[in-house]
């Protein structure tokens, strides 16, 4: 059969990062893939050099709507790394609470979309309903559902009120039973096993070679988590488990994310119950010349910031490296050899920006046959339906 080219992307109003994929397919099998990024390059590194150290926090918070805590967190760590400085305990705990809340809502968002791609719209509804509860908690704590604006070099901007803590704990407790139900529904489903196990495998060697990060690498058996290995914030004072699985397929990536959600709930509850008293901010006067590095574990992997100061009130250089920058190139090994109906979920499994996959369009070289994103999701959902019938579920 003749080879065809599938262009994916580049634009979609929901994406935070437009990308353009070119899949070369032979019949139903993907034989090659090329990625082109840069459609959403806004020059934030350059922009950040024009702002003062305090203003830059707000600029980089807007790099991503879902990771709106990870970037400021890494940035303030980098600024605090320029010269030796102690952040108050209470501020560290508040930072940890916000970061983990973000992880829960990001993982739930991914789970919902992954469910949708596979034709499990109930999972989509349940996961996004749970996410709403977490966003309410974040609104109580910070005043915003997203873009929390809680971080500043030296501490946090807002304190957590004593009377808010029981309300938040109650809300978080209320989502645990539904989370457990969702976990069982996903992990014990035979159809989902057949659909996602052994698909899009990223081996341990390739994960290390491509320097893959976060859940993508932990699903391949690379036991690296910055919260455990290079503790920042209050993570060294909390008991929690790093989730590592061995197979590296789509199923394992989902399992890592689901189990991590439970760990995050544990961390948030511990922090809220044991919030120390005291100041929330060390007042920084000026920042001496020097350079600093901050790296933290965002929901998708390590976010890396490098800040250089020349003694003025603006950063001389600010380098931002988001986790998807390292995770995206792993497509080269995971997608090749898969079928088109699996490509949607493999592309989504790395959690880049799931919305790209909605923009997939298929056409063969002569331009006879054209599928759009909707058709591809339909293709993926039909495969699940077929498997369901084989298993006798419906």
């Amino acid at each position, binding site marked *: 059969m003749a080879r065809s080219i599938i262009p994916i992307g580049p634009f979609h109003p929901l994406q935070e990062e437009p990308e353009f994929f070119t899949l070369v397919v032979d019949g139903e099998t993907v034989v090659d893939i090329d990625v082109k990024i*840069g459609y959403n390059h806004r020059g934030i590194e350059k922009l950040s050099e024009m702002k003062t150290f305090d203003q830059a926090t707000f600029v980089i918070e807007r790099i991503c709507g879902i990771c709106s805590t990870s970037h400021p967190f890494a940035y303030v760590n980098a600024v605090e790394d320029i010269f030796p400085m102690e952040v108050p305990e209470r501020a560290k705990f508040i930072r940890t609470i916000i970061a983990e809340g973000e992880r829960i809502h990001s993982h739930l968002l991914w789970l919902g979309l992954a469910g949708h791609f596979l034709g499990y719209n109930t999972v989509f509804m349940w996961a996004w309903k749970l996410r709403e509860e977490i966003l309410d908690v974040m609104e109580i704590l910070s005043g915003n559902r997203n873009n929390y604006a809680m971080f500043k070099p030296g501490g946090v901007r807002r304190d957590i009120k004593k009377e808010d803590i029981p309300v938040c704990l109650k809300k978080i407790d209320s989502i645990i039973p539904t989370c457990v139900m969702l976990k069982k529904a996903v992990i014990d489903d035979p159809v989902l096993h057949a659909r996602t196990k052994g698909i899009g495998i990223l081996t341990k060697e390739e994960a290390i070679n*491509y*320097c893959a990060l976060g859940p993508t690498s932990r699903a391949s058996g690379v036991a690296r988590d910055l919260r455990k*290995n*290079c503790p920042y914030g209050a993570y060294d004072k909390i008991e929690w488990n790093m989730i590592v699985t061995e197979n590296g397929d789509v199923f394992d990536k989902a399992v890592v994310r689901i189990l991590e959600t439970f760990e995050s709930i544990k961390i948030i509850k511990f922090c809220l119950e044991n919030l120390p008293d005291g100041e929330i901010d060390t007042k920084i006067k000026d920042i001496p010349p020097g350079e600093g*590095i901050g790296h933290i574990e965002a929901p998708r992997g390590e976010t890396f910031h490098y800040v250089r100061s020349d003694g003025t009130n603006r950063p001389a250089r600010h380098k931002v490296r988001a986790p998807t920058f390292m995770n995206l*190139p792993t497509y080269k090994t995971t997608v090749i050899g898969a079928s088109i109906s699996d490509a949607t979920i493999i592309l989504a499994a790395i959690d880049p920006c799931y919305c790209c996959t909605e923009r997939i369009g298929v056409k063969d070289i002569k331009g006879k046959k054209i599928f759009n994103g909707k058709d591809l999701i339909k293709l993926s959902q039909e495969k699940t339906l077929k498997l369901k019938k084989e298993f006798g579920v419906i």
Partner: protein
Amino acid sequence: MVRDEVVKNFKEKFKSDIVEFLDKSYKRVYVEIKPEAITRVARYIFRDLGARFNTASGVDVRYHIEILYHFTIEEINLLISVRVKLQKDKLEIDSIANIIKGANWIEREINEMLGINFKGHPNLQRLLLPDEWPPDVYPLRSDYQEWDKNAIRDRGV
């Protein structure tokens, strides 16, 4: 693997390549090396020490351009930043993308942002900048002038 031992072994192994060694704190080490030694240093840190390549960052410091390669050894919580200084009349360095696949994209990015030629890179094409961007304009250089007079951009007001 003990942290001090790793640092000591590294210093001894690359004695002739190291220009400056800065033990900034327990978690951070900055090493300046000669540009021609980058591939063997990167191979040693990545393969033998089992480090993870974080990223590289280029800085234009007016008289020369610096590239910092950041590596994390997670087992001992140590971040090694390997610094290379390139003179402006000779902006080229060996590519490490053949040793570390994860360095492929960042070298392409530095190439278009600062105009550094990575010798031996498998695919040194543009990554982020648009196609209509002129070839010899590098946005992160300190002498960058806005070339597109019609562009509406935030000028830091």
